[in-house]
């Protein structure tokens, strides 16, 4: 009886969200499972093949991220000084930086288990947090939380927290320091330099 009620609740819930788009918790689960399955089978990625990992992230993960929102979140109040052109340049560079970081983390993935925490949301919510947890032997489980926002094309991730540390807002004080020192263009230049040096060290290590 309990199970039947549960099933009915699920049906009701999915009907409420709308049949065309994936619920945010399901989206996170599907993408994580899909990507980690590929990483587990791919020796090149496990051995740190940067290009292959970047391609994987570009094709499977990026479409679900909202980099415009992420950049604005990282900039905070300082974002208001940026012209639309500067903002575009920032989004571009920040996106490269985040994708490189995410890819690096994937090549470090071994046998950790990802647990998807129970998820609840009200039918018309547009901003949610999906909780997962990385479990590994010999350590305390590390929470990995995704913040998603619903827009015209579906649910998009706009922040990720690892053990409570936001991968986006952790940049805020560095960004504002760069802007104070060299203006928005100074920050763009610093990001470009960082991305270029990462790209060259990646080709060298191959």
């Amino acid at each position: 009886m309990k199970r039947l009620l549960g099933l009915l609740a699920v049906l009701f819930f999915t009907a409420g969200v709308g049949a065309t788009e994936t619920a945010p918790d399901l989206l996170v689960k599907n993408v994580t499972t899909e990507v980690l399955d590929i990483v587990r089978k791919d020796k090149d990625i496990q051995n740190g093949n940067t290009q292959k990992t970047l391609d994987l992230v570009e094709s499977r993960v990026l479409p679900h991220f909202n980099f415009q929102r992420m950049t604005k979140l990282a900039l905070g109040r300082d974002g208001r000084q940026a012209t639309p052109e500067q903002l575009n340049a920032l989004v571009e560079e920040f996106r490269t930086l985040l994708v490189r970081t995410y890819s690096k983390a994937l090549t470090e993935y071994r046998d950790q288990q990802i647990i998807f925490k129970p998820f609840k949301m009200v039918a018309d919510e547009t901003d949610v947090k999906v909780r997962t947890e990385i479990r590994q032997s010999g350590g305390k489980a590390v929470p990995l939380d995704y913040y998603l926002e619903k827009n015209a094309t579906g649910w998009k991730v706009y922040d990720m927290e690892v053990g409570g540390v936001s991968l986006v807002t952790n940049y805020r004080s560095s960004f504002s320091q760069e802007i104070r020192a060299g203006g928005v263009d100074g920050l763009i230049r610093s990001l470009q330099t960082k991305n270029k040096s990462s790209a060259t060290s990646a080709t060298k290590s191959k």
Partner: protein
Amino acid sequence: MKSDMIKTRLKTSLLAVALCSVLAGCATSGNPKDPIEGFNRAMYGFNDMIDSAVIKPVAQGYEAALPTPVRTGVTNFFGNLADFFIGINNLLQGKPGQAASDIGRVLVNSTIGLLGVLDVASEMGMEKHEEDFGQTFGRWGVGDGAYVVLPFFGPRTARDTVGLVLDVKADPVANIDDISTRNTLLALRVVDTRADLLPADKVIEEAALDKYAYIRDGYLQRRRNLIHDGNPPRERMD
């Protein structure tokens, strides 16, 4: 004696750090959470130097030499020694349920878990917690205070530095009477902890524009999260 030489060298380096920081003192960026940034950056550089010269290479060797189950056993062993005071801190923070679970962990892991080498308690559903005196003070309402980078210990806040003094006093490993056993275990713990952090190292390297600031801001966010046991009030973001 060789150790005297190392001590003298360390003293010289620390003096150099102190001097640099006095000179760089005016070069702070005005971050309100980091009023002694000049000193902190110098100390960060000092710690980083010690890390890349000694601790990191040893940790890499340790990781390469020992299979994962053995390293997990070492991590579990030290984790078990820490669980008792994690329980005490949970009690001080008014969480008797979690405290009881921590003490239960010590009882189970010290016996069935072969002196803590196996974390049987986690498999039985007694979750491992992370608590220390700094968090307890935070829970009691003591604010962070200034961010400070300590020699060898690394990032702390003023509050967590006071907490650290109590953590060290309560540390079962630091209280072992036999000096050579104590030092061996302390060194093993440092190396084992460092080895566990090696993957994070590479990711931070890739992510950070300014490694010092990235680690500082990450540390502050992490502490805030820990004090609220994973559920801090969400800050207004944009």
